[in-house]
């Protein structure tokens, strides 16, 4: 188990290092950053001055190491646009996205897993059809449209929740539903398929032959084995959500990290983009690691791998 843990941690660290290299080099993919910063009317001297000011005249490895050591201490430099530390911008925006993402995945799991389990116990029943309907709709409906419908019904017509903003928990209800519902179909179908397969397994027959309680068979013996692929998928989807949903954050005027990323790209605000990419990626790496550990806990056979 310790070896498994160390291997996974080592791999995660390697991935993180690679990602940092890629997000650093993004700055130079879009051409000479000094030219972009200087603006259209800039003279060659202006550009040279900017190059010196931002340190673009140093060799690339030096710049990378400087950037990385800064990043490790939370110093991503200043935003070109706001001229304030990048880290301040991010710590201001990221909690909103985190809150929304976590709420979204919880909503998705709470809706999708029970529905998937019931659909698997009673295939082709009314509930199974209903679950299929929900997942088809969820898959097919554009997020922005669904958001607007929810706003029209629950915020405007019924007035149960605020239309937009991020001041109280009630502001998060509609965005959570939208974001969570988007993740529901995949999780539900995977739960259903996994449960259907596991329920046919010989060891379920053994559990029944032992005379165990049906609920114990379902939750102890079946769900644990069916959950393994679901954990992986949920981790990926949570990663998506924590990367921020531009659409949802825009529509509900949630000042989250997704919106910040979108705006920073439009403003050529490279330090912010770099920092966000690195942070989003690290979150992803961490979630994958977490999913691996969770699966190793669920299935002892994974621990030796």
């Amino acid at each position, binding site marked *: 188990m310790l070896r498994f843990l160390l291997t996974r941690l080592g791999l995660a660290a390697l991935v993180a290092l690679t990602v940092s290299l890629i997000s650093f080099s993004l700055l130079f993919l879009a051409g000479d950053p000094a030219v972009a910063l200087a603006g259209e009317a800039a003279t060659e001297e202006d550009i040279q001055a900017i190059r010196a000011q931002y340190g673009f005249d140093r060799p690339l490895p030096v710049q990378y190491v400087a950037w990385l050591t800064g990043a490790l201490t939370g110093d991503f430099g200043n935003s070109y646009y706001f001229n304030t530390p990048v880290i301040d911008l991010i710590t201001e925006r990221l909690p909103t996205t985190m809150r929304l993402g976590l709420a979204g995945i919880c909503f998705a799991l709470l809706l999708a897993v029970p529905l998937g389990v019931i659909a698997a116990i009673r295939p082709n029943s009314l509930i199974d059809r209903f679950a299929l309907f929900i997942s088809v709709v969820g898959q097919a409906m554009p997020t922005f449209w669904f958001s607007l419908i929810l706003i029209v019904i629950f915020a405007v017509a019924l007035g149960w929740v605020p239309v937009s903003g991020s001041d109280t928990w009630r502001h998060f209800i509609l965005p959570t539903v939208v974001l969570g519902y988007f993740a529901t179909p995949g999780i539900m179908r995977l739960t259903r398929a996994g449960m259907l397969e596991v329920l046919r397994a*010989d060891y379920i*027959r053994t*559990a029944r*032959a*032992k005379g*165990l309680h049906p609920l*114990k068979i379902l939750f102890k013996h079946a769900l644990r084995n069916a959950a393994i692929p679901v954990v992986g998928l949920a981790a990926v989807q949570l990663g998506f959500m924590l990367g921020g949903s531009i659409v949802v954050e825009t529509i509900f005027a949630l000042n989250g990290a997704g919106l910040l990323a979108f705006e920073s790209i439009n403003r050529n605000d490279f330090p912010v983009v770099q920092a966000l990419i690195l942070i989003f990626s690290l979150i992803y790496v961490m979630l994958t690691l977490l999913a691996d550990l969770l699966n190793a806990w669920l299935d002892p*056979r994974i621990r030796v791998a």
Partner: protein
Amino acid sequence: MNSLLSVRNLRVEIPVGAGLLKPVRGISLDLNKGETLCIVGESGCGKSLTSLALMGLLPKVARCSGDRLSFGGQDLLGLTERQMARLRGRAISMVFQEPMTSLNPAYTIGDQLIEGMIRHDGVSRAKARDRAIFLLEKVGITAAASRLSQFPHQLSGGLRQRVMIAMSLMCGPDLIIADEPTTALDVTIQAKILRMMKDLQAELGMAMVFITHDLGVVARIADRIAVMYAGIFVETGTARQIFDTPTHPYTKGLLSCLPVPGKTKLGARLGAVPGVVPALIGGVQGCGFASRCPLRQAACDIEPELSERGDGHSCRCVHDTPTLRKAEWATA
């Protein structure tokens, strides 16, 4: 007669696209305490479904009916699923064919051994653990206490089947149904496991329904034998009767496939029963074995009844006993 298990005319039917599949077409049996009945037959004859029907573990689509299915004086056909679950694992338990897949990979074998006993007998974990260790040692597993924390994937097939057998014994059942428990194991392990099951049975005094297609296995453990073909018993009797004076052409055919030490000459060809089991959709007309039988005649178009051919020895065939005894399978 006061038998432990008494079955009359048990049927299993499964609706399929093309009609009604009738894999078990009315079997009857009586089993006394401590006795071993072997149900022998080839693949697809309905023997596994018979065992699942006895356990109440048939797939949902299958329908089970019968004139009687009583166990220890209790009518099983009338029980609800909940009542049946109370019997399963406690009074009747089962050992399955596939030791590699019959244990849940996510739990330790200790956990899987004790959970049934905790449920049925309401004992503490510690007490159930003691019982598990005791039984693991009984089935010949060394270092039993340390095995409890192992996972199924850390054990070999033979060990896993021993664990399954120990598991079936946890609550001290009156009846064990073993569905080809040694088929997936290699021959040396097979012999060990069979001997062990026989010893345990003598020691613990439970009855056993042993399902197999392997006559070599039958010879080792059976008190009584039922030869199953196309969903019904074609011959039943004591192990001696079946092996010494086989009567039904199918039984004789099966036995001719076996080499007999000291009798079968070196280089001689073993027998084979030609043909295949008839399709069981919509039932079988006449004698199910007629299409493969060397003694076939017009009367075989009507299904014969199981008739007495000696003390407790019955055979389902239109021919009289002397004709059947005389008849030989032409070895190809």
